[in-house]
């Protein structure tokens, strides 16, 4: 399974990547929205975990860009937004795209890793 992690906080990025790899998935990690958009265009991923607040752009912008490649159903299935700012607005916007939102810090790390690394039928 191919996972893309878009997270600009170095320690979180490194740790999440390692924790996911321990579960047997391939993880590509990038730190900026620009890199993310480019890599999404060129590669296929089963899961895209995207932090909302990136240095150069927001997670929602990345999703918008990926509409060039993915259908709405794909987006809803593949993308998981992670963010420290879990306001109603964020939830509403995510609901527009149909994708999940996970608040940082994760209430249950294992449950979060399950969402990130398990293929859905």
């Amino acid at each position, binding site marked *: 399974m191919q996972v893309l992690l878009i997270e600009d*906080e170095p320690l*979180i990025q490194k740790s*999440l990547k*390692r*924790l996911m790899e321990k579960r047997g998935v391939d993880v590509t990690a990038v730190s900026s929205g620009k890199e993310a958009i480019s890599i999404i265009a060129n590669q296929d991923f089963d899961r895209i975990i995207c932090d909302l607040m990136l240095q150069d752009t927001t997670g929602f912008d990345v999703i918008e860009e990926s509409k060039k490649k993915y259908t709405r159903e794909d987006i809803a299935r593949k993308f998981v937004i992670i963010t420290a700012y879990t306001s109603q607005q964020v939830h509403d916007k995510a609901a527009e795209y149909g994708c999940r939102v996970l608040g940082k*810090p994760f209430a249950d790390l294992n449950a979060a890793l399950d969402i990130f690394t398990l293929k859905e039928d």
Partner: protein
Amino acid sequence: MRFFCATKLDENLQKSHINVVVTESKPLKLAPGEYWLEFNQDIVLVSTEQNSFLIKSSNFSKWLDLNEPALIHSSNSANRLQKTIKRFVTTIVDAKLVGSVKNDALITFLGRDDARELERSWRSPHMLPRVVLNLKDFHDYETCQLFVHERGRAIAESWTCTNKKDISFSKTSTNNFNKIFSYIKKSKSKLFDQSQSMLSDVYVVGNFLAKEFSFQNHSALIFLSRNGFLPPGEDELKSFNSLATMISPFLDRLLTQEQAGEKLNQLMLLMETIPIPLQVLDNNEVLIFENIAFKTRDESIEYSTRNIELDSGYKLTLHEEKVHSFDIDHHRRVSLLGELLNTLQHELNNPLFGLNLGSLDMSSENKGEVADTFHDISHNSARCQTIIKNFSNLYSHSKSDSTIEIKDFVSEIFILTKSEIRGIKTSISFNGFNSIENFRFKTNPTTLSQVIFNLIINAGQAIKGQVQQDKMKLSDGLIRMDVTKLENSILFEITDNGPGLKDEFFKNAFKPFYTTKSQGTGLGLTISRGLLESIGSNLITKNNSEEAGAIFSFELPIPSNS
């Protein structure tokens, strides 16, 4: 009837200066020194600006035939009339009958008993029907009804007496009243036979006498009937007309007085019940009125007074609760702090989360000492996140209610107080919670946490004060929190074993800026009480009768379906 008016007398009452004007229409208002005379049969009604009274004068009926209006216009009789009236008015003045008690005139007209009766009725208009039926002249009449319509009202009122005793009250619409009024007014004879028309809400039966009155603020109608089928005779008609004439000015004055009285009553009631404490002082600064809000005001709050000058030197004093600027400052401080903490929380979340994840990852890669240490690092960074989150919530100033789990809630707040009460023992107990659901209820978490936080800090400072004075050891200090579930509320009690509360405390505790602490702001309890009031509770303070120290408690009402 003919009406005559004598105009101004000069101060010396020189008879030669009396001017008499003969006119049919009564002036709307009499000026001082003006007299209005109305003749009827053998009574004369004399009206001045302030008074009206009756004089029985058999002399008048002799020289003037009131049924021959033509007579007036012949110069002879006019002159004669003028002279007579001059003489008459002089007599009145000489005899100082002007402004005299109307009793004498009344007695002359009606006889002592009837006069007294009539005068009593003249205090309240609605007694009139009964009084009329009890008069000698009208004692074989059965029904008397008085209608009154106050200008501008949607209804007219009526009082009917049918057995010389009981008065029954009824209302009718203004429309109906006006219909009856015009009907009566149009009639020349003032003799009515009810079979000729159906007047609703008129309770006289058969033939009846009626008269209409038009006053400045009211219209009135009086009905009188034997409830029989014999039409009234000439004499009876004359008697009735005399009566009508006689009562007219008094009825006017009484109705006006009653209207003013009503207004005054309503005004008094309004002043009594208005929720602003107020007092009225007369022009000698003597207190003449205090309303309910003033008598029941909370004396521990500060008030600022505002004076309003009334007519005639009276003064209305309003007492308004002082809104201290500190209330607003506190609010601002809390909001600012809330915003700062929120930002801090978000900024710290990422690195702390990173620490947590990183150390969890490393912990699983290692064994023994290294693994344990990484595990501890992870645990501590998670703890940091919780602390920053709780502090942020404490000052997030949310106005909305949410469901809280009381055990976690209280524990979290105690954690926040740790730095202030380090070294002091604490104990928390929960009583009366019979099921897990009981521990959850809806309230405003920000308000509740601020109050509990403040009370724990206070308890801690009381103990530390004793320690500083060498009166006790820090390790002997105990702050206890007891949370008890009652039927419809939850009781929170915070007990300390500090010095307890002095008498001075009970008087001044909730006054802003009162403090026993050398560095206290003196605002904590005032604010706490305000916060509790906003969530339907009330702060109770007392000394612990069993041991030394104080108990601060409050009860939170729980909505029955939570």
